[in-house]
C-alpha cells in the first residue's frame, strides 16, 4: 500500500495510534464508509425509485426503495408500525419498533414482500434468506417527530433550531448483516465492486432509510392536515440525518476482526502519511482546508452531550478548533505544511483535536486518499492459519512487539482484571460485567488479548528458543488463540488495541467510537460508559439530489450565510 513516491513520512506507530483514548477520539474522514458509498453512487450514476409506498394515514404499511447501480439493484424494504410508547426501547432486547427494514439483493416480488412482512417486523425472532443483505429497525425521536408532524400538518415548517438540536427523526439500533438471522453471507457480495468496501450494504440501507423516514413523516402530516399540510423544506430535510443508538455489541467486533480493523486504521494512517509527505500545498488546497475548518465550527457547535467525559472532550475540541484556526492563518502552503501542522498539533492540541486535524488534512487530496478505500476490507482469510514452523524465539519476539507493554502489568490485581466480557443468555447480546461482583467468570469471552498474551508469554518461559511453535501448541492448546493473534499482528500491526480491555477504568465507548468514526458517524453522544448515540448522513443529499457535486463534502455544514 505504501507508495514511496508519495509517502516519505513514516506511518504513526501502533503504540501511538492504538491506545483506547486515541481510538476514542477518532473522527470521520474521506475514507469513511458512508462517504465511499455516496461518492461511488454519484460517480456511477445510480438511479433511485420508490415502486411501493403502501402506507395508511396512521403510518402503517410497507414501502420499497430501489437503488439501481450499473451491475446490481438493491432494495430497501420498509415496514412502518404503530408502536405504543411503552414498547419503545432502544435496547437490543426490545421486541417491537416504529419501523423495521431489510435490504433485498435485487428487486423484490410481491411474494418476497409477503415473506418479509411475516419476518422482518420480528427482527431477531424472524428468519430472512440469502436474498437479504441486512436487517434493521428504527424508533422515532418522539419529541421531534411530533414537532415536525404538527407543524407540517398545520402548513408550517418545523423550527430549524429544534431540528438541529436532535438531528434526526428516527434512530436505528442494530443493523445486522453478514449472514445474521439467515441473511446472505458477506461472500455473496464481497467481490462486487460496489460492495467491496466494508459495510456498504448496511450504509446503503441506512441512507435509503433516511429517505423513507422523510417520506413517511410528510405522508403522515398530509393525512393529518389535509390540504393545509406542506412538504418539508428540502434545506431543512437535509439537516436531518438518521440516528443510531449503539450498545456494547460493536466493541467485541473490533477485537474479533483484527485484520479488518487493521486495514481501516492502516488505510487512514497511509493517507495521513501521504499528505504529510507533501512538500507543498497549492493555494486552492490550503483554502479548501481553511473553508472546511470553518464549516466544522458549525458541526462542533451542534454537537451536544450530557456525558461528562464527552463534555470535557468537546470543551477541548472547541479550544483546539480555535487554536487550529489561528495556526492555519499562517503559511500552510510551503515547507511540508501538513506535516508541520500535525507536528504542531501533537504539542498543542488534545487527542480529540489531533485526530480531528489528521482527518481534515486528507480533504484536499482525493487523488492521494480515495483509492485507499479499496484496501479496507479483510482479504486475508488465511491469516487465520498458524505458522507452526515459527520458532518459539520468534513468537516471543512477536508477543513482545505487540504486547510488551502488557507484561509489566500485574494480572493478578483486581483492578487490572476487574471486568469480564460475556454473552447473556437472554437475547444473546454481549455484555461487560464486574468479575468480582457477578457470577460471570466462567462465561468469559476471549476479549482480553493483552492478559492472554502475558499468560502465553509466561507459559513459553521453559521452552527452548528453536522449538517449533507447533510443538508448543500441541501441549498448550489453551494458548492457541493468542498465538494466532500474535502471528496476525505481523500482517496487521494496527489490528490490536494496545490497552487493557478488562481494566476497571475501561470505557467501552472508546471502542464504539473508533468503529463508528469509520462508518462516518458524527455527533458522538455517549449515554453511559458503554452506550452511545450518533448521527449518520446529516447533511447528505437525498437520492434526487445526489450528484458528484453533492456526494462528498456534505458532512461539513454550509456556514450560515
Amino acid at each position, binding site marked *: 500500500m505504501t507508495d514511496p513516491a508519495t509517502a516519505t513520512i513514516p506511518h504513526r506507530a501502533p503504540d501511538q495510534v492504538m491506545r483506547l483514548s486515541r481510538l476514542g477520539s477518532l473522527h470521520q474522514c474521506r475514507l469513511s464508509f458512508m462517504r465511499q458509498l455516496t461518492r461511488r453512487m454519484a460517480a456511477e450514476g445510480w438511479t433511485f425509485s420508490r415502486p411501493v409506498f403502501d402506507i395508511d394515514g396512521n403510518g402503517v404499511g410497507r414501502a420499497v426503495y430501489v437503488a439501481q447501480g450499473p451491475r446490481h439493484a438493491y432494495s430497501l424494504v420498509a415496514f412502518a408500525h404503530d408502536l405504543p410508547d411503552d414498547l419503545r426501547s432502544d435496547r437490543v432486547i426490545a421486541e417491537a419498533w416504529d419501523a423495521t427494514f431489510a435490504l433485498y439483493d435485487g428487486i423484490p416480488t410481491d411474494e418476497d414482500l409477503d415473506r418479509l412482512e411475516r419476518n422482518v417486523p420480528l427482527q431477531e425472532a424472524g428468519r430472512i434468506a440469502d436474498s437479504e443483505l441486512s436487517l434493521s429497525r428504527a424508533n422515532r*425521536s418522539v419529541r421531534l417527530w411530533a414537532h415536525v408532524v404538527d407543524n407540517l400538518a398545520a402548513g408550517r415548517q418545523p423550527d430549524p433550531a429544534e431540528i438541529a438540536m436532535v438531528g434526526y427523526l428516527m434512530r436505528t439500533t442494530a443493523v445486522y448483516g453478514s449472514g445474521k438471522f439467515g*441473511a446472505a453471507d458477506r461472500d455473496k457480495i464481497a467481490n462486487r465492486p460496489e460492495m467491496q468496501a466494508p459495510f456498504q450494504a448496511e450504509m446503503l440501507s441506512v441512507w435509503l432509510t433516511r429517505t423513507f423516514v422523510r417520506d413517511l413523516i410528510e405522508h403522515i402530516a398530509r393525512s393529518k392536515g389535509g390540504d393545509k399540510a406542506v412538504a418539508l423544506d428540502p434545506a431543512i430535510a437535509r439537516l436531518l440525518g438518521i440516528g443510531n443508538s449503539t450498545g456494547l455489541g460493536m466493541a467485541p467486533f473490533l477485537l474479533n476482526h483484527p485484520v479488518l480493523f487493521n486495514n481501516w486504521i492502516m488505510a487512514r494512517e497511509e493517507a495521513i502519511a501521504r499528505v504529510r509527505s507533501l512538500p507543498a500545498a497549492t493555494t486552492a488546497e490550503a483554502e479548501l482546508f481553511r473553508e472546511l475548518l470553518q464549516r466544522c465550527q458549525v458541526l462542533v457547535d451542534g454537537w451536544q452531550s450530557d456525558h461528562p467525559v464527552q463534555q470535557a472532550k468537546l470543551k477541548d475540541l472547541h479550544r483546539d478548533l480555535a487554536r487550529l484556526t489561528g495556526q492555519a492563518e499562517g503559511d500552510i502552503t510551503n515547507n511540508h505544511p501538513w506535516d508541520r501542522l500535525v507536528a504542531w498539533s501533537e504539542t498543542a492540541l488534545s487527542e480529540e483535536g489531533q485526530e480531528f486535524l489528521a482527518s481534515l488534512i486528507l480533504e484536499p487530496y482525493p487523488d492521494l486518499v480515495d483509492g485507499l478505500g479499496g484496501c479496507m476490507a479483510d482479504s486475508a482469510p*488465511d491469516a487465520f492459519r498458524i505458522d507452526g514452523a515459527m520458532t518459539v524465539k520468534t513468537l516471543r519476539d512477536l508477543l513482545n512487539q505487540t504486547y510488551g507493554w502488557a507484561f509489566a502489568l500485574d494480572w493478578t490485581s483486581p483492578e487490572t482484571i476487574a471486568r469480564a466480557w460475556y*454473552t*447473556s443468555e437472554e437475547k444473546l447480546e454481549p455484555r461487560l460485567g464486574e468479575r468480582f461482583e457477578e457470577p460471570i467468570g466462567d462465561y468469559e469471552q476471549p476479549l482480553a488479548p493483552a492478559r492472554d498474551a502475558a499468560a502465553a508469554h509466561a507459559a513459553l518461559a521453559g521452552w527452548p528458543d528453536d522449538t517449533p511453535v507447533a510443538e508448543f501448541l500441541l501441549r498448550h492448546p489453551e494458548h*492457541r488463540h493468542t498465538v494466532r493473534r500474535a502471528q496476525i499482528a505481523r500482517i496487521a500491526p494496527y489490528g490490536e488495541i494496545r490497552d487493557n480491555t478488562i481494566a476497571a477504568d475501561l470505557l467501552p465507548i472508546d471502542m464504539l467510537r473508533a468503529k463508528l468514526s469509520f462508518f462516518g458517524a458524527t455527533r458522538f453522544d455517549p449515554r453511559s460508559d458503554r452506550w452511545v448515540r450518533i448521527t449518520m448522513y446529516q447533511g447528505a443529499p437525498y437520492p434526487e439530489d445526489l450528484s458528484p457535486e453533492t456526494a462528498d463534502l456534505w458532512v461539513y455544514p454550509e456556514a450560515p450565510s
Partner: protein
Amino acid sequence: MSFSLNEVEVTARKAARGAGYPWGLAEEAGRATRWLCAQGLPGCESLAALLDADLAAALQDHMPGGLESPWRGRAELCPLGTGAALSDSAARVSGGTLDIADVAQPMLFLPFVAAAARRLETALSLAGPGFTAVTDGTTLSLAGTIPEAGTLTLRPAAMPHTGNQEQTRAAPDSRAWQTLNRFAHRTYAPATEESRLMGAGAGLSDND
C-alpha cells in the same frame, strides 16, 4: 431450514467452546465446520457427534504424542486438536506419508488437510476405511463414505479433476443443529437483573 455459513461457523465455534475446547480450537471447529458445509458435507452432524463424545474433558489424551509419523494418542485422537497440529506443521507432510492412528470423526480432519494443502500449494490425499478424499484446499474430491472413526493415511497426491459443487448455505439435520445449540448455550451467562441493567448499557426507554 437453511442457514448462512456465518451462522454455521459461529454456532460451531460456540458449541465447541461450550463442550470444553479451548478458544483457539473452538475457532478451528468453527472454520472446519463451515468448510465442510461449503463442500456440501454434513459438518454440523459430524461436530455434534464429536462433541457428544466429550473428548475435551481429557484433551491431552486425544492429542498426538508427538509430531513424528505415525501420530497416535493415549486414546482416540480428536480431529480438531490433531487437525490443528496438522495445519500448524503442514511442511512436515510435504515429502512423505503421515499415518494417523484411530481418529474420531475423520470428516472433521478433512478441513485441516485442505488448509495444509493450501499452505503447501499441492494436493493431498486422505485415505481411511472405505474412503479416499483428495483436496488442493479449495476443491474436494471424495470417493466412498467417511466412517465414524478410523486410522488415516495422508500423502501428497495429484490434483483432483472434479470437485464438489461449492455450497453457499447449509441445511443441517435438525437434531444435530439442536445438539450444537445445546452446547453453545453453555457459553451464555444466565441473566440477572443486575446484568440486565448494567451489562449492556443502553437505556430502557427510547421515548425522547
